[in-house]
């Protein structure tokens, strides 16, 4: 589903002295079946932005179009289930949503709310627990006996189990070990290749460079830039005023450029970097 934000403004505590802008006149299109990364400093409005996509927040003004469903400030809370079934969301701290007495039941909770039969939900739970890298033996455990990283995987499985078309991930790998992080990111990439739309909020620029096709930079409640990661990481105006940092490969290339290397465009992934170095060293 294509997601279109039109002049969307969100003010928290509107009409009170505590009023603050969460988003300021945002217009943005997130394309169907692509992997889009959303980056920006802490408090810039990333979580606020994605909460609109499944109508957890209604705009103060402006509209969002999710597929053919339009959400306006007047949208009421009825009939949002079809939308929320299609837009799965993994929250910043997903472990705080676990509540059932076994992992299996917790994973089945979402799908069954969206009308999946118990048998299908069970099947889905068995499939997803493998997919997120935990074995079936975890299904019978209590979610509260797991480690933080395992809880996170269970929570992710719980969202994937409803088979949403669009998957929103709010810093899904924060606090995971490097191997676990790569596993989870590869999983999301796979899901995208199977035809899902992935929206990833992250502070890790290497993940953006390695996985995303589109990138949105949010700064002070506004959309500062939209485009391909390679173009955005090569935009000097964004790199200067502490809006954005470079992925490690690009930072390394920047250092090399001081030592007789030259890069017309900074490489942003390790493989791009190594090809480029090889080319310049061996001259082929």
């Amino acid at each position, binding site marked *: 589903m294509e997601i279109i934000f039109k002049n969307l403004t969100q003010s928290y505590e509107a009409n009170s002295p505590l009023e603050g802008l969460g988003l300021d006149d945002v217009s943005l299109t997130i394309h169907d079946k692509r992997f889009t990364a959303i980056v920006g400093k802490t408090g810039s409005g990333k979580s606020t932005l994605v909460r609109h996509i499944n109508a957890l927040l209604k705009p103060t003004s402006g509209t969002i179009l999710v597929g053919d469903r339009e959400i306006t400030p007047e949208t009421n809370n009825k009939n949002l289930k079809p939308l929320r079934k299609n837009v799965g969301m993994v929250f910043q701290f997903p472990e*705080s949503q676990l*509540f059932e007495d076994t992992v299996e039941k917790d994973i089945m909770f979402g799908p069954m709310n969206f009308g999946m039969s118990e048998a299908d939900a069970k099947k889905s739970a068995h499939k997803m627990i493998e997919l997120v890298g935990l074995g079936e033996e975890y299904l019978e455990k209590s979610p509260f006996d797991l480690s933080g990283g395992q809880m996170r995987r269970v929570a992710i499985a719980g969202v994937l189990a409803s088979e949403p078309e669009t998957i929103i991930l709010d810093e899904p790998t924060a606090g995971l070990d490097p191997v676990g992080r790569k596993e989870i990111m590869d999983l999301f990439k796979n899901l995208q290749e199977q035809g899902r739309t992935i929206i990833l909020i992250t502070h890790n620029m290497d993940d953006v460079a390695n996985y995303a096709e589109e990138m949105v930079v949010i700064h002070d409640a506004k959309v500062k830039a939209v485009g391909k990661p390679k173009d955005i990481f090569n935009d000097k105006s964004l790199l200067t005023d502490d809006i954005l940092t470079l992925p490690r490969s690009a930072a390394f290339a920047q250092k090399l450029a001081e030592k007789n290397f030259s890069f017309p465009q900074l490489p942003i992934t390790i493989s791009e970097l190594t090809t480029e170095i090889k080319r310049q060293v061996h001259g082929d």
Partner: protein
Amino acid sequence: MNKLIIGRYLPGDSIIYRLDPRGKFLITFYFIGIVFLANNVASYGFLLLFVLFAVYISKINLGFFIKGLRPMLWLILFTVLLQLFFTPSDNPMWHWGIFTLSTDGMRIAAYIFIRFVLIIFISTLLTLTTTPIEISDSIESILKPLKVIKFPVTQVALMLSIALRFVPLLIDETTKIMDAQRARGVDFGEGGIMQRIKSFVPILIPLFVSSFSIAYDLAIAMESRGYKDGEGRSKYRVLSWSKRDYMSLIVMLLITIILLFIRSY
């Protein structure tokens, strides 16, 4: 959740904000006490004028106070109607079964209504202009004499301020959990009564789990930073009693005298 005005601080600045919280705290309770002294149109009118004046100098929009009435609306309505129809009278205007309507009943109903307004406005004024932490500091300071009878004043005050600190935290946590469960297809406030009660289980359990872990973390954090209760702890926020606080007490005294005068008049 944000609709609850009583118990919520509103950042601002005016003479009411600058008063010592202990004074404000005592005055609020004192005022609630003397509201019950009023017994005629003039005395109720006088107290109402005083409260409106206090609201005026607080520089807070009257709307916030009117919103404060809202959660109490049913109680107010119930009490007022009770007075209106059940006040016994010798010359009722209207009579039907157990219901009587009389001028006496109307007068008393109006008084009760004003009494509610006075009490709610003045307590709203206290909480809008005083941070919860200031309130708990002043309770500690006011309870200090009880130390003589071995009442654990500092511990109680600490518990109180931690409890107050937990309120916004728990509200945030609840919103977060509700959002996460909504995203997983829970509809709050839909379906039959059993359905609704059931839809709260997915909130309450994570809420309990996270409150315990927050409390546990807090205890560890306090211990590792060397917190020890008991005598001789100095204060980070020092309350200071100044001239305007004496003034406010004098104002209260004057109001009492005038009230006693109007009352017997």
